[in-house]
């Protein structure tokens, strides 16, 4: 991230300027395409140079596809792929008479692909305007213009006392302000060993204490709500069903590290998240839980809700910070870490939404109670998992760490619908390994999953049934990987393209050369996108080599 561009934004920020990305998004919403006049306006309003604005305008999906009166976005996420392969895109393209990324000449309709609308429980999913429809008949309705909002199943908890799947009550913040104080709160969070729920599993307490110690006239809290992993809709549920839990978690983070402002970056693919958070933030302000002098103390904290614009890699923390500031969502080398230089160059804590939602419990009940939530393992706290449409009872469930994947799939989610058999499950998103049916007894926890080339990741459990062609899975994942590469580091930018090209035709794949490429991606990539995309490929090479067409 350019220090100078950040500095230019920081100076402009003093006048409450919108970001360039916000101005460009508004222009797209207003007239369905971007003109140079829009870019010039975005530059003037945001303080970003025109060239940088141009760069932004060529980065995000939402700014690229021209929009007609009816803008149809068809989900190409992995859950929808597991359900119907590439058929939804082909179907809509044929019926609407336009290819993805195109707009009808009369501007009546436009079609675009989108990666994961978070309706993985009822694929195929399609969004028309602000309405997401999903499940049987959704594509027909998208063509005929009769789209209706798809229902979403309720979340459930298998814990005796749910922590995340229940309404929040701001008890944690009250206790922190009344009795704990800054130091003890920080100590509790460190003692609770809250591991990041966004994929990397980094201890939240350590991030907080770096930021608390870092010097800076201002500090910021950023909630990473960019749940881009296809197949995952956990953070969506949290942001839309328990926004108060997230806001309380952010306020606690702010209190602990000395930040007075927070940002939530939620995905534009989840059109309901931002309104839900804004509504809750307004209510919290009215009740004195956000704003100045919170609960009669001298603690000030408020939040701004920002919506992304269609980019998977923005889920990576440095890219996320770039996006929050309206820049291109590309990854930056660390150090410097966000805890040192984040928003406007100031110390910043970046935590995943689910991670922050864990904090109110820790603050209210203490580290001991939190660690006791998963009695069968060392890992602390509970975890939300979610299942795709192939399952009999797909939804979000709160579970303890340490159950086996089989228990989760069969006992919690009811096995596959219609008695179908699991061929493999991908856990934790596209960067997670793929577990063949034979390994379903692996425990769902950080270390046991890592031992079989998988990860907890976001917590999505995405099943492929026996009808799935695993070479198609490889092709699907690599296409996603190549298209979502931010373009910053060479191995990912070029390597994922080459890997996808290997699988894009029916020609046999040179295994030795592929493995060389996977090594360069794993060891060379700047972030977990290029570094993680080989994981499912490695799983497939190990467990399904005969299906990949290797030579």
């Amino acid at each position, binding site marked *: 991230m*350019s*220090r*100078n*561009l950040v500095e*230019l934004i920081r100076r402009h920020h003093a006048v409450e300027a919108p970001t360039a990305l916000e101005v460009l998004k508004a222009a797209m919403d207003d007239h369905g395409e971007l003109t*140079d006049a829009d*870019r*010039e306006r975005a530059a003037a309003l945001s303080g970003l*140079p*025109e*060239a*940088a604005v*141009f*760069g932004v305008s*060529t*980065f995000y999906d939402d700014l690229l596809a021209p929009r007609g009166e009816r803008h149809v976005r068809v989900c190409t996420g992995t859950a929808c792929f597991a359900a119907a392969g590439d058929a939804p895109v082909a179907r809509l393209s044929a019926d609407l008479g336009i290819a993805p990324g195109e707009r009808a000449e009369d501007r009546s309709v436009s079609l675009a692909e989108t990666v994961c609308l978070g309706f993985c429980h009822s694929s195929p999913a399609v969004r028309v305007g602000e309405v997401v429809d999903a499940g049987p008949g959704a594509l027909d309705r998208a063509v005929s213009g009769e789209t209706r909002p798809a229902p979403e199943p309720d979340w459930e908890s298998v814990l005796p006392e749910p922590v995340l799947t229940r309404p929040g009550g701001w008890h944690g913040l009250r206790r922190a302000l009344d009795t704990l104080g800054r130091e003890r709160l920080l100590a509790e969070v460190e003692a609770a060993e809250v591991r990041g729920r966004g994929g990397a599993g980094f201890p939240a307490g350590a991030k907080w204490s770096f930021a608390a110690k870092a010097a800076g006239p201002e500090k910021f809290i950023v909630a990473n709500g960019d749940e881009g992993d296809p197949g995952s809709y956990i953070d969506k549920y949290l942001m839309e069903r328990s926004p108060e839990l997230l806001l309380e978690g952010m306020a606690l983070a702010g209190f602990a590290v000395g930040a007075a402002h927070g940002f939530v970056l939620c995905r534009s693919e989840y059109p309901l998240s931002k309104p839900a958070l804004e509504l809750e933030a307004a209510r919290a302000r009215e009740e004195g839980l956000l704003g100045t002098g919170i609960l009669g103390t001298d603690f000030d904290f408020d939040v701004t809700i920002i919506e992304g614009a269609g*980019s998977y890699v923005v889920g990576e923390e440095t890219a996320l910070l770039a996006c929050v500031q309206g820049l*291109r969502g*590309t990854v*930056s*080398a*660390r*150090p410097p870490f966000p805890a040192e230089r984040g928003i406007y160059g100031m110390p910043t804590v970046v935590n995943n939404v689910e991670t922050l939602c864990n904090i109110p419990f820790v603050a209210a009940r203490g580290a001991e109670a939190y660690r006791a939530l998963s009695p069968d393992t060392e890992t602390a706290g509970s975890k939300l998992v979610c299942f795709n449409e192939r399952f009999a009872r797909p939804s979000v469930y709160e579970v303890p760490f340490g159950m086996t994947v089989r228990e989760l799939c069969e006992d919690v989610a009811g096995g596959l619908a219609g008695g179908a058999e699991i061929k493999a499950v991908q856990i934790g998103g596209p960067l997670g390994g793929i577990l063949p049916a034979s390994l379903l007894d692996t425990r769902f926890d950080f270390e046991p999953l890592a031992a079989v080339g998988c990860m907890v990741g976001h917590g999505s459990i995405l099943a492929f049934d026996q009808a799935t062609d695993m070479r198609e899975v490889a092709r699907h994942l690599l296409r996603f990987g*190549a*298209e*979502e*590469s*931010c*373009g*910053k*580091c*060479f*191995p990912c*930018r*070029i*390597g*994922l*393209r*080459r890997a996808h*090209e290997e699988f894009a035709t029916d020609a046999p794949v040179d295994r030795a*050369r592929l493995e*060389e*490429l996977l*090594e*360069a991606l*794993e*060891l*060379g*990539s*700047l972030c977990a996108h290029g570094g993680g995309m080989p994981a499912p490929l490695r799983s497939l090479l190990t467990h399904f080599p005969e299906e990949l067409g290797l030579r």
Partner: protein
Amino acid sequence: MTTVSVDGVEVEVAAGTTILEAAQLAGRWVPTVCYDERQAPFGACRVCMVGVVGSPKPLPACTTPCRDGMEIETEEPTARRVSRAVVELVLSELPEAPAPHTELAQVAERLAVGEPRWGGAVHRRDDDLRHPYLALRHELCISCGRCVRACDEVQGAFALTATGRGFEANIAAGLDAGFEESSCVSCGACADTCPTDAISEISLVKRLKGA
């Protein structure tokens, strides 16, 4: 002060010194493509991978700070394998081999990376020769970010940007209507730093193409 060894040569460096800077102090060569000493380290090309004893995987020399007692191996086999694989990938995206005088060609030669074995897509030819001094040949751009950073961190004209993403990533001046229509001050720092001649002096391009 921090002491590290680079291929057995001990050097003392100030806190915050990167492995690459330490290697240079020790007189050891580390291949780089996106690095320019006039700019902040960027960490994009991943060609500067080196081995560090005790590290499970190679580390990028340009962005990794030295720690006391670090034992750095510039030619550690895994690191070198990654560097070579990445250089081969970069060569594979160009529609023609980079000219022999370019930094990329010289790094490839030194790493003994020949003709890339990858087929597949290459950058589309798109030459902008409108400026009196600067030629922009998009097909040679490898998105190393050096020109954009030169314009930002050295000149402060902010006339260049990275564009697109993934394999389609490239660069543009201003709103992509050429250098003259942008905030470019024609300082040429971009051409000076470009490792592939994607931005170069137009007189040199004409010599290349004309006679």
